[in-house]
């Protein structure tokens, strides 16, 4: 009996051991299911390509910092913010004291190269799977690669480009670790040649209309190509391509300048290329480039705006402001026609326009109030209004619950009294996540007005056709003044100056000013602290110089 038990136990144990050893072949290690898609076996259907295409577009949203810094670096604005130490990288660029140690410049470098790399990932596999509409999709990707390269060449000059010759033919190769040691910087001319090649492909493979709002069109490619020519002073090439998009493209100036920068004005008839943002998905400060909203907008917002109820003497009273007052307030503002019934949400008061740029506007130019918000004017328009608060009734010290509204704000660092009104946070936006980082204001990257002014400049500076230049210029001015009485009739360099002036006032707050001054060699005379021969380019981030271990040299004089 006992023996039997032992035998049964022994069999049991041996079975266990045997099963253990049997199951223990190394194949056991292969059977895991961790649900991920291998990036190197992708691109098997049109859908796969489309999904990857979205990834290439994604980095456009990170270009918010380029736009913000394009203004801050210029003579249009001061850095602002909370204090002299609020975002030191911004402050230094404003003061032209920036060095290669600057995390914000490093963002520009890294984020735009991230866009380049995603484009090249797509292009690496462009021939893997055949499908209808593939050329158009490849054209979009090449436009985006050109867009990212154009940003980078504006900021940093010569750039590392992998397999340059193949890239020129439309191929793409991602950077891999170690490339920073071997891939040298292609010259500015070579970078532009690649940009031109990519854009010419896009021009010939895209239509003026796109499948979805927000995607690249032929017009966008033509406009960016013209802009790239203009940046190289290739005036006749620029004039040709601009004339083409003006004459054959579907674009017109919007009737109302004011409407362009409101939510309803997004992707309108004047919009040639627009970076799309939404208030539907936010991010945190640890990954600003992850936000689907326009981060720059929150940074530019009015510092701590609030409406406070006050008594006759302007003394604050304690007690909450009721909802009914808020709606009354909005109603009154709407009926007064002030700000089309809209007020602005708060923000961090960066990028504040200077008195100088406010003064640059001519008398009668309707764009001034649309572009530059005078915070005191806003307050004055509200302050005298008296309210009756039904909900709260009688409040101590105030008879019949009547009180005044005091609109107040906090003066930030370098307060000028002005805000960049085009890109202020609009009240009522959703702002998922962090509301300050999730504003839906699209960035109007290329407006038809910009195209007209660039065309005017190309025709004038290239000595091609001053009268055509005047026509383009005056289209823009006529809208601005509501009359053609202010039309420019000058020619030659006088016309050039008029065009420069027009670019400044038409496009103020839109991130173009610094680069316009640099490419037209006006920067050192216009921007305080700008050193010719140095500040035309920004420094390559110190880390990149270290990574390249001598492969890349720093830009001059940094």
């Amino acid at each position, binding site marked *: 009996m006992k023996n039997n038990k*032992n035998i049964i*136990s022994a069999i049991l144990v041996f079975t*266990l051991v045997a099963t*253990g*050893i049997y199951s*223990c072949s*190394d194949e056991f*290690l292969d059977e*895991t*299911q961790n*649900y*991920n898609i291998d*990036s190197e076996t*992708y691109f098997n259907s049109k859908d*796969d390509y489309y*999904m*990857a295409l*979205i*990834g290439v*577009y*994604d980095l456009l*949203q990170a270009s918010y910092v380029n736009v913000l810094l394009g203004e801050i670096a210029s003579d249009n604005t001061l850095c602002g913010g*909370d*204090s002299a130490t609020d*975002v030191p*990288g911004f402050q230094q660029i404003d003061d032209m004291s920036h060095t290669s*140690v600057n995390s914000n410049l*490093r963002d520009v470098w*890294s*984020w735009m*190269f*991230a866009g*380049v*790399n995603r484009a090249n990932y797509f292009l690496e596999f462009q021939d893997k799977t055949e499908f209808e509409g593939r050329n158009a999709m490849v054209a979009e990707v090449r436009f985006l690669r050109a867009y990212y390269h154009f940003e980078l060449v504006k900021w940093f000059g010569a750039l590392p480009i992998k397999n340059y010759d193949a890239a020129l033919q439309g191929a793409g190769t991602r*950077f891999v*670790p170690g*490339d*920073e040691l071997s891939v040298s910087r292609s010259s500015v001319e070579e970078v532009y040649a690649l940009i031109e090649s990519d854009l010419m492909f896009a021009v010939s493979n895209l239509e003026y209309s796109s499948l*979805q*709002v*927000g995607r690249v069109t032929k017009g966008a490619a033509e406009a960016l190509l013209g802009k790239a020519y203009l940046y190289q002073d290739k005036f006749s090439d620029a004039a040709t391509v601009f004339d083409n998009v003006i004459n054959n493209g579907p674009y017109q100036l919007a009737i109302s300048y004011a409407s362009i920068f409101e939510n309803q004005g997004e992707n309108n008839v004047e919009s040639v290329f627009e970076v799309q943002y939404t208030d*539907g*998905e936010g991010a945190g*400060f640890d*990954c600003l480039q992850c936000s*689907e909203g326009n981060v720059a907008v929150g940074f530019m917002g009015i510092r*701590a*705006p*609030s409406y406070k109820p006050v008594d006759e003497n302007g003394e604050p009273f304690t007690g909450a402001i009721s909802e009914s007052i808020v709606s009354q307030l909005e109603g009154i503002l709407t009926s007064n026609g002030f700000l089309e019934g809209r007020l602005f949400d708060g923000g961090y008061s960066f990028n504040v326009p200077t008195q100088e740029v406010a003064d640059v506007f001519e008398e009668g130019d309707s764009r001034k109030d649309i572009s530059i918000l005078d915070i005191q004017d806003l307050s004055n328009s509200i302050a005298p209004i008296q309210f009756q608060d039904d909900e709260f009734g009688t409040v101590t010290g105030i008879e019949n619950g009547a009180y005044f509204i005091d609109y107040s704000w*906090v003066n930030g660092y370098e307060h000028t009294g002005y805000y960049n009104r085009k890109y202020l946070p609009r009240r009522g936006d*959703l*702002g*998922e996540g962090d509301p*300050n980082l999730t504003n839906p204001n699209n960035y109007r990257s290329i407006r038809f007005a910009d195209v007209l002014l660039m065309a005017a400049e190309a025709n004038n500076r290239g000595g091609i056709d001053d009268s055509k230049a005047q026509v383009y210029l005056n289209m823009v001015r006529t809208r601005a003044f509501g009359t053609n009485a202010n039309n420019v009739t000058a020619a030659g360099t006088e016309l050039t100056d008029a065009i420069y002036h027009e670019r400044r006032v038409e496009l103020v707050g839109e991130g173009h000013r610094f680069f316009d001054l640099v490419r037209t060699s006006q920067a050192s005379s216009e921007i305080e602290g700008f050193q010719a021969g140095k500040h035309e380019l920004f420094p390559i*981030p110190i*880390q*990149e110089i*270290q*990574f390249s*271990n001598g492969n890349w040299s720093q830009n001059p004089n940094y």
Partner: protein
Amino acid sequence: MKKIFYTLLVSLTFATTAMAQNISVSGTVKSSADGLPLIGVNIIVKNTSSGAVSDFDGNFTISNVQPNATLVFTYVGFETLELPAASVMNVDLEEDNESLDEIVLIGYGSKSRKDLTGSVSIVGSETIEKLKPVDVSQALQGTTTGVSVSTQSGSPGSGFRFLIRGVSSNTDNDPLLVVDGYIVSSFNSLNPDDIESLTVLKDAQAAIYGVEGANGVILVTTKKGKKNTAPQVSYNTYAGIQETTKKLSLLNASEYAALVNESYAANGQSLPYSNIAGLGAGTNWQDELFDQALMTNHNVSLSGGTDNVTYYLGATRLDQDGIIASDKSNYIRDNIKLNLGIDINDRLKSTINLNYFSNKRKTINESGLGSVLFNAISYSPLFALDQEDLAPIFGAEIINPFSQIRDTYNTYFGSSIEGNFQLDYKLTDDLTVTSRMGFKTYSDKGKTFSPIVDYGPNKVFNTSRSTVSQSKNQYDSYTWDTFATYKKSIADKHNLEATVGTTVIKNWGDGLFATGFDVPNNSWDFADIALTTGTSDAKENGSYTYDNRLLSYFGRLQYDFKGKYLLSAMIRRDGSSAFAKDNRIDYFKSVTAGWKISDENFLKDSEVIDFLKIRGSYGTLGNLVGNDLYRSALSGEATYVFDGALTNGVANGPIANANAKWETAEKLDIGLDAKFFGNKLEIVADYFLEDRVDLLIPGLPVSGILGTTAPGSGSPTVNAGTTRSEGLEFLINYSDNITDDLSYNVSYNVTKIEGTVIDVNAEVPLTGGSFGVGQPLPPSRMENGQPIGYFYGLQTDGIFQTQAEVDAYPSQAGLPGGVASPGDIRFVDVNGDGEINSDDRTFIGKPLADYYMGFNFSVNYKSFDLSVYTYAEVGKDMVRNYERDEPDVNRLDFYLDRWTGPGTSNTVPRATTGATNNKLFSDFYVEDASFVRIQNIQIGYSLPQETLEAIGMSKVRLYASVNNAFTFTNYKGFDPAATNGAALGGGIDYGFYPTVRQYILGLNISF
């Protein structure tokens, strides 16, 4: 429950009485060697459940014993003795030489402590009982050499981390944790009352655990019943009051207003506070926030055994409130433990260990920028308790801490069943086969509600839409070991033990999470996705799965000659699914050896030396980090807006590294174990040296051209470095009985560790951590020849007193804050190039201590016992990074000593709202964080034997204790012992939730 059991016991005794004329047995049990009474000897009437345990004087009494009965005397370390019952029995027990020492687990087997050849530390249940740890991890702090235990928060239910012999890896330094043979990821599921012992394997002996052993191994044995012992019921309970161990010394209202005024004036701004005189002390936010909080613990257990069955059953509840907002921060833990051992027959034994665990937790935001404490120390003392920062004056991140608590809603619940089933089969007398299946299945769910709130303009914590986020996770694992042990003694000289076996480990699980928008009534009462109506266009739900496997074969050969010369060798082959096929298999080997000098003839009869052994070990072990690094997955984020709607695509995740493999440790240890003067004095000393090669460097900084900053992407993790840890451990322990009534024990241990980076193959030094807000240069570095994670910043040399001094000194214009003014910090021109810039940064401190020490002391006098446990870390620095760089925040009171004019201060810079370099990371922010902490003071009183007998108990002990009684340190922050555990970026104090001081009253009852 216990009453019923007791009644049952009594009635059983009566039942026996009815049957025969029984006798009462009483007597004394002593050790035959020294004649001293033996306490706690189990005496049982054979084949019955009745019995007794000897008291402090070795006395015992058993009533109602049948005259022809046999009594069985069992005691650990002594030979079991069976004697016929008699009314008076004075018994001498013989020492059992086989088990004179503790039996120590060494992984897939055990060994007598005196035969150990590796470096092993043990903590027994007495220590755990004394320390009253909420988490069993705390029992290792200060009680063992080479082990340090830390936490980054004192909040209820927060976890602990171990370091065994310092930091070697910059990825993962967590030791392998094994409970009764199955692997766990933390000890939080264990109830300290259920623990029998903790064993720490520190050197190459742990090579039997191969790829998982490099950071050391901690083995936990849970309590089991003892064979042939009467059922014993224990009830242990304690209740405590908790309070904070520290409040920061901040400025009061008038001091604050004066400083703010001064800083505004210095920058030419108008003064915010016109009349400072009447401001007084203002609000002390810390006093308002910190509260006394309760904790209670109840534990009931039943244990015992018969000839072939042992059992232990325990149930415990711990309820701990937080010292901040106890209704929003608390922890409840329940455990039910069952250990069962059954000898099915002479050859087959089975063991079952089961542990049910559940925990419920609520938390507040507790560490760093955005935490409740951060807000409390930054908020103005001029503000009233309910005052929001409407101006705002503190910037975007600081809000009223009470409002923050009010708007914090979350709950977490997790439960698990874990344990193992084991079968041991003795094939022959020499050969035993063991197979065991350990498992853990843990599931949890969490919910967080974020209401619509407005803390004032611009605050980042404002929410305009309410959300409720819910998650459910499932974590499963099993560890299946099968091994055979062959033990043979040849000619009573050659002792041989061989073990071969295999281990299969699988960890897998999955999770789901989602967020609902627009919670009805903006209320926690309605916070469930089921009730939300709103949606977001973004992807707010998701899931994940994981599945990691390990397959191992191992063998170990142990040989000794007459127990004097000890030798062992082991090898393990590991394969892990975490790596690419070409890199997944490796072999780990080690040898250990020992020489028991005290067994040699020339020492055998020594009066002084009772025991002396030298031992050494060398081998390789692995650190299994770097899961799935070889896969290049499309896990990046690709979201853009087409047609006005969010559109999701795909993009590359972190850069893959096809060549990634695990880290390897090469460990050497030479040690000495000795006992003197009749085993009263014990000394253990070790020298160790470890090289950690193929160090996995996560997030290796790489060029921006690789696109690693794209959303969801990241830098590759690369095997690119070597570190070396070298050190000494020393433990001295002295125990003595001065009289029969008075005994004491004194113990001191110290560990010295020096960790250095030998080689990092990165193009730029690896950096980590963060300092301040918006400062781009990380404060921590890993660099050849320096300690891991050392602090790298500017070196200060006092304060500029006059403009002339500034002018005469190298310019600081190259720093972000521009040229210096009088009152600013003077930085050292380290590279001597005549200007101060970021190139002048240098070593300014290190986060890890040079010395870890424990000093422990206990006395027993008659029925009283007293013990004191002390822990110290010496030679470490911490970075003061909980001060927000905003003009209007409150500050520590050392700013009272700030520079206000020539000669006023040479240590603390001026106050100004202007841009200066004073906020840059420099040694001004690095403090010596060495500390000595009295961890536990306890005084207990046990009822004397006579009283116990009168009331039918075997033990009644009352005690009072204080945990974290005092901390002696110069460190200004909340807790010098806290750390986030990161190798790179550790030691930076972002504002830790302080450790709590606990005043405890407790009771232990056994019968």
